C-alpha cells in the first residue's frame, strides 16, 4: 500500500524514530511494531475501493444498455435480461471468492444489489406504476438487507441503510406525519452491523438515527418540537458520559462505543437547540436565556471532549460554538443588544474557553497525561 494512504503509519514511523533516538524503543522493537501495523491492514486498500467504484460504473453501463435497447426487445426478454445481470453479479462474486478476493466479491454483490433496484424501477416503468416510489424502495432495501445478511457483505448492508433512509424520505414526503416504520428498518440493518462487528456501519447507523431524531423536531406538533430533540440529544449525551465514567468496563467491552455516542448525541442536542433558538424566533428574553444555556452546554461539551480526548465531539463542539456565535450575531445585530455589546459577550465567552483549555492543559501536564 502506498505511504500516502496511511497518515497513521506515517506518524507512527516519525514517532518511532524519535522514540528510538531517545532510547525508549529498541531497533528490534521498532521493526516489530512497524511489521505489526503493516500486517494488521485495517485500512481500506486501493484495489477494493476501485472495485466498488467499478461495480457502480458496471451498474450504470448495464442500466444504460438495457434502457437503450428497451424498445427493440420483447418484454419477456427485458425481464430475463434484468435477471441475468443480477445472476451475473452473484456469479462473479462466487468466482472472486474462490480465487481469494473477498473484498472484490463484495463489489460484485453491491453491483447485483444495485441491479435488483434497477429491475424494480424498470418493471415499474413496464407496468406504468408511478404512484408510490416508496413501495419500490421498500422492496429494494429488504432485498439488499437479505443479500447483505446471507452473504455477510458490509457494502450491501451499508447500501441497505442508505435505502432505508431514502424510503423514509419518500414516505415522509407522501404523507404528513412521522414515518415511524423507519425505526424498524433502521433496527434491522443496525442489528446486522452489530452482528458483523462493523464499526463504520455503526457510524452510518448513528448518523441515520441522528438525522431521524433531528427531523422529529420539524415534524411533530407542526414543526415546533426542537426542544424535545435537544432533550433527547442531551439525555443520550448524559448516558454516554455516565457509561464512560461509571461503567468503564462495559464501555471497554463494547469497543469504546461511548465516545462516538457522545459526539452524535451532542450533534443532535445542538441541532435541536439551534432550531429552537433561530428557526422560530422566540422573544428576545427567551432567546438570550436559550443562548446562554446553549453556550454553556457547548463549553461543557468541549471541556469534556478535551478531557477524554474525544476528537469527534471536540470538532462538533467547535462547529456548534462558531455556528451559535455567528447566528446570534446575525439575529441580534440592530436589536437592543447592539453589536459592540455582542462582541463583548462573545469575547468574554472565548476568554473563558481559553482559560478552561489552559487549565486542562496544566492539569494533564501535571498528571503526565497528553492533552
Amino acid at each position: 500500500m502506498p505511504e500516502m494512504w496511511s497518515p497513521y503509519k506515517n506518524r507512527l514511523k516519525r514517532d518511532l524514530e524519535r522514540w528510538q533516538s531517545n532510547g525508549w524503543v529498541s531497533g528490534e522493537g521498532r521493526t516489530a511494531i512497524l511489521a505489526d501495523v503493516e500486517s494488521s491492514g485495517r485500512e481500506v486498500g486501493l484495489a477494493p475501493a476501485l472495485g466498488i467504484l467499478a461495480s457502480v460504473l458496471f451498474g450504470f453501463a448495464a442500466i444504460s444498455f438495457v434502457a437503450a435497447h428497451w424498445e427493440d426487445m420483447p418484454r419477456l426478454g427485458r425481464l430475463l435480461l434484468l435477471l441475468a445481470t443480477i445472476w451475473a453479479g452473484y456469479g462473479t462474486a462466487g468466482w472472486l471468492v474462490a480465487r481469494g478476493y473477498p473484498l472484490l466479491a463484495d463489489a460484485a454483490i453491491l453491483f447485483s444489489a444495485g441491479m435488483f433496484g434497477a429491475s424494480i424501477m424498470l418493471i415499474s416503468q413496464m407496468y406504468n406504476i408511478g404512484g408510490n416510489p416508496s413501495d419500490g424502495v421498500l422492496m429494494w432495501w429488504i432485498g439488499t438487507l437479505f443479500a447483505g445478511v446471507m452473504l455477510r457483505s458490509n457494502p450491501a448492508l451499508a447500501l441497505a441503510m442508505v435505502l432505508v433512509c431514502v424510503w423514509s424520505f419518500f414516505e415522509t414526503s407522501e404523507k404528513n406525519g412521522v414515518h415511524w416504520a423507519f425505526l424498524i428498518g433502521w433496527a434491522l440493518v443496525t442489528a446486522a452491523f452489530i452482528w458483523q462487528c462493523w464499526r463504520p456501519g455503526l457510524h452510518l447507523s448513528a448518523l441515520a438515527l441522528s438525522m431521524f431524531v433531528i427531523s422529529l423536531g420539524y415534524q411533530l406538533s407542526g414543526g415546533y418540537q426542537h426542544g424535545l430533540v435537544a432533550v433527547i440529544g442531551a439525555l443520550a449525551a448524559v448516558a454516554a458520559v455516565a457509561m464512560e465514567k461509571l461503567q468503564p468496563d462495559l464501555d471497554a467491552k463494547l469497543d469504546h462505543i461511548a465516545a462516538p455516542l457522545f459526539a452524535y448525541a451532542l450533534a443532535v442536542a445542538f441541532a435541536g437547540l439551534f432550531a429552537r433558538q433561530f428557526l422560530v424566533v422566540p422573544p428576545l428574553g427567551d432567546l438570550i436565556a436559550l443562548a446562554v444555556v446553549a453556550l454553556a452546554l457547548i463549553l461543557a461539551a468541549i471541556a469534556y471532549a478535551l478531557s477524554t480526548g474525544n476528537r469527534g465531539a471536540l470538532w462538533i463542539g467547535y462547529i456548534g460554538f462558531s455556528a451559535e456565535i455567528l447566528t446570534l450575531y446575525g439575529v441580534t445585530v440592530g436589536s437592543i443588544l447592539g453589536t459592540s455589546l455582542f462582541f463583548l459577550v462573545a469575547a468574554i465567552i472565548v476568554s473563558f474557553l481559553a482559560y478552561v483549555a489552559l487549565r486542562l492543559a496544566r492539569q494533564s501536564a501535571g498528571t503526565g497525561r497528553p492533552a
Partner: protein
Amino acid sequence: MIGKSKLVWPLLAVVAIVQSAALFDMVFARDRLLKSGQEIALAVKPLDPRDIFRGDYVTLGYDISTLTKSTTETDPDFTGFSVGGPVYVTLASGSDGKWTETHVSSQYPSKVAPGEAVIKGRVQSLWQDGNAAVTRVIARYGIENYFVPEGTGRALEDKVRSHEVKAIVAVAADGTTALKGLIVDGERHEDPPLL
C-alpha cells in the same frame, strides 16, 4: 463477504433466487391484475402544461384526481380523510360509456351496484374553505404516469391537452388499479400481458 467456504455458492444461489422470485412476483401480480381486473375507461383531463411532461412519461390527470364535496351534496361518507390515507371512489358507466363518480368514501363502500367499479386512491392533500362548506380531496391512484418510447411524449401530450385521450384502467376487486394503456383518437394502445 463470507469467507472461502463450501457454503458460498449455495448462499449466493439462495440470494439470487429470492431476489428473482421477488421480481417475478411483482410482474406476476401486475400481469394478473391487467388480465383479470374489471376494465374501465377514464377520460384524461388536460393538466397544467408545466407539469405534464417529465422525462419519458406523460402525467395524466383525471376528473377523480380532485374530489369535491359542497354543501349542496349530501354524501354522508365523504369524511374521515387523512393525508396519505386511502380514498375509495365508486364509478358508474353512463349511457355514453363515460365513467363518473357516484360515491366517495374513506372506507371501502358497503354497497356496490352491479356494473359499478370501486377504485382505491391515496389522499395527497386536503383542502377546506373557511367554514368547511367545501372539502376538496386531491387523490392519486397510481395510474397517473404513462411511460412512452423516447421522443414520442410531446405528441401524446398535445393530444392529452386537446381531449382526445382516454385511459384504460384495470380494477381489482379490492380497488387496486393498473394503467393498461391509452385510447388515442379511438385507437387502443396497449402492451399485451407478459405471461
